[in-house]
């Protein structure tokens, strides 16, 4: 009975995913005691509040914008590395592979402190820039969007690279060779052969990195500032304010965002002519 083998996973998912999800959905439909000490009937108030208030709307947009920025950066930086990783015949390939996944080897807190050491007002980068006379006063590299984007791109890049590399590896090199002989320079080969055939990898990488970005918390907490408020931080704030029900509604928004993207991924990133 192979189905029996799935049971542990199903039980696990039921206990730690479906159940909490149900609770969250339920809670999001009621007002908290903080909001309404008398208790309330079922309502969409939490959702109308999230969409009706310019402040919360801005947080929502900032979350999406951060996701787009980090994803785009990871894609642009990661693609060439993934391509190289997929095509190299070097015996030192495993060294490169280790370098690629190295950000994941270090704990998130330590990694973030590493970035603080590098990006702080008196950090390595600013010291270096000042020593070279490139800037007079320290640049604000941290406690703002810049620091957040840098730190998130760094840690999420491995996901993008590995996803892309495995797909690119599956594209026969003979296609590139043939395209070259037929007159395609490197850009045309990328544009007309490699990129279209790696679209599924692009889709998977983009989805993965985007979802991880809009759900990330610690890096933003440590490297962000007062204006880098995104959904996970807002949810955390609301929970500390004992406003669990509004937090649940925001959590649902985050989830819907991911699910919509997941759904779109399969339709947008397709390889033509595939079976």
């Amino acid at each position, binding site marked *: 009975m192979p189905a029996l083998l799935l049971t542990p996973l199903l039980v696990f998912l039921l206990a730690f995913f479906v159940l909490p999800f149900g609770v969250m959905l339920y809670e999001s439909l009621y007002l908290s005691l903080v909001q309404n000490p008398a208790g309330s009937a079922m309502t969409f108030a939490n959702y109308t509040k999230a969409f009706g208030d310019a402040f919360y709307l801005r947080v929502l947009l900032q979350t999406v914008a951060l996701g787009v920025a980090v994803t785009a950066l990871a894609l642009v930086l990661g693609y060439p590395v993934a391509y190289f990783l997929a095509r190299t015949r070097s015996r030192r390939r495993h060294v490169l592979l280790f370098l690629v996944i190295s950000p994941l080897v270090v704990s998130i807190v330590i990694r973030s402190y590493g970035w603080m050491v590098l990006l702080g007002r008196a950090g390595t980068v600013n010291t270096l820039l000042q020593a070279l006379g490139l800037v007079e006063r320290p640049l604000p590299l941290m406690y703002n969007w810049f620091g957040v984007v840098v730190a998130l791109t760094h840690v999420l890049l491995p996901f993008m690279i590995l996803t892309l590399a495995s797909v690119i590896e599956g594209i*026969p090199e*003979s*296609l590139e*060779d*043939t*395209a*070259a*002989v*037929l*007159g*395609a*320079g490197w850009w*045309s080969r990328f544009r*007309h*052969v490699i990129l*279209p*055939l790696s679209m599924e990898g692009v889709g998977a990488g983009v989805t993965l990195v985007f979802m991880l970005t809009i759900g990330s918390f610690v890096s933003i907490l440590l490297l962000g500032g007062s204006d880098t408020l995104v959904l996970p931080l807002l949810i955390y704030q609301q929970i500390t304010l004992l406003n669990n029900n509004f937090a649940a509604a925001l959590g649902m928004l985050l989830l819907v965002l991911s699910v919509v993207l997941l759904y779109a991924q399969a339709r947008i990133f397709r*390889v*033509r*002519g*595939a*079976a």
Partner: protein
Amino acid sequence: MSTAVGRSKMADVELRAIAKRYGAVQAVADLDLRVEPGQFVSLLGPSGCGKTTTLRIIAGLVRPDAGQVIIGGRVMNDVPVHHRGLGLVAQNYALFPHMTVMENVTFGLRMRNAAPADIARRAGEALEMVRLTGLQDRYPRQLSGGQQQRVALARCLLVEPAVLLLDEPLGALDKKLREAMQVELKSLQRQVGITAIFVTHDQEEALTLSDRIAVMHQGRIQQVGAPHDIYERPRTRFVAEFIGVCNFLEGEVVGRQPGAVMIRTDGGALVAVGADAHGAPAEGVKVVVAVRPEKLVVGAPGTSHSPALPARVEAVVYVGTAVHYHLRAATGERLIAYRQNDAAAPVALAPGAEVVVSWPATAARLLPDVSG
């Protein structure tokens, strides 16, 4: 016929002292080759002998360690792949799976920014030429092996390449289709009048298709010549063995007569080999006598002209159009003889029969005694 794909430039190709090493492997060594305009030349050799590497060097996909690639009188070493104006058909066809037949075929022209109207017209003609009209909107996976093959050819020919490079293009097809495609490929090549370099490890295919064959072994060309030349007058034991089947008798020159050389085989038999006026080896030189199985005459003892080897039939293999006799000479050598299965000569000999084997002196070749 002057179709869109019928305006080839008919370039000649010359390789001068080409060498390429991969780590410890000398893939190509000191290779010289001349291909005349419009000729169909095969690179033939066993797996790993450097055929693909040679082809890729011509294409510009591999940079040689030494030597020159000259196409149409122009040194191409520093010309990048996509500016060489060649055509390549790879073993797996390498059709772009995400493009339709039409998009595949027009790829080269689109890369050259040809005018859309021009592209459409020439593509139509090319598809007609390879009999693919009506399939232009299919994707490669929706085509049979033979159709994919023809798409790859059309895609190549549409850019009017100076040279057509083919790397075992028929390797993935079954025998019947393979033979049909051989005929098609050859007639297409002749019709277009294009210079073609064809890589194969199938000697029969090379014999069928080529104007000339270059037999390769361990990165070197052993012999270049017309098919009958390679078959009838192999210059090394490797060539004789690789093309068709061949009997070898190792021995020593013991005497010379006008037009022939007498050899005593290591087993002690005395045989004659017709020798060219020049280059007959001196007495005492170790040589190898090579005779094709179909040139051997197997007869009852005492019936044949000398020199003749007494032998015993060890096995008889009936293959339909012919009978193969596996023989063991009294002096120990193993031989194989073919007898055409014609009406005049029904299968007569049984295993164990005592026979004599002989051959016309001119049917045997004298080869230098170097292994390999």
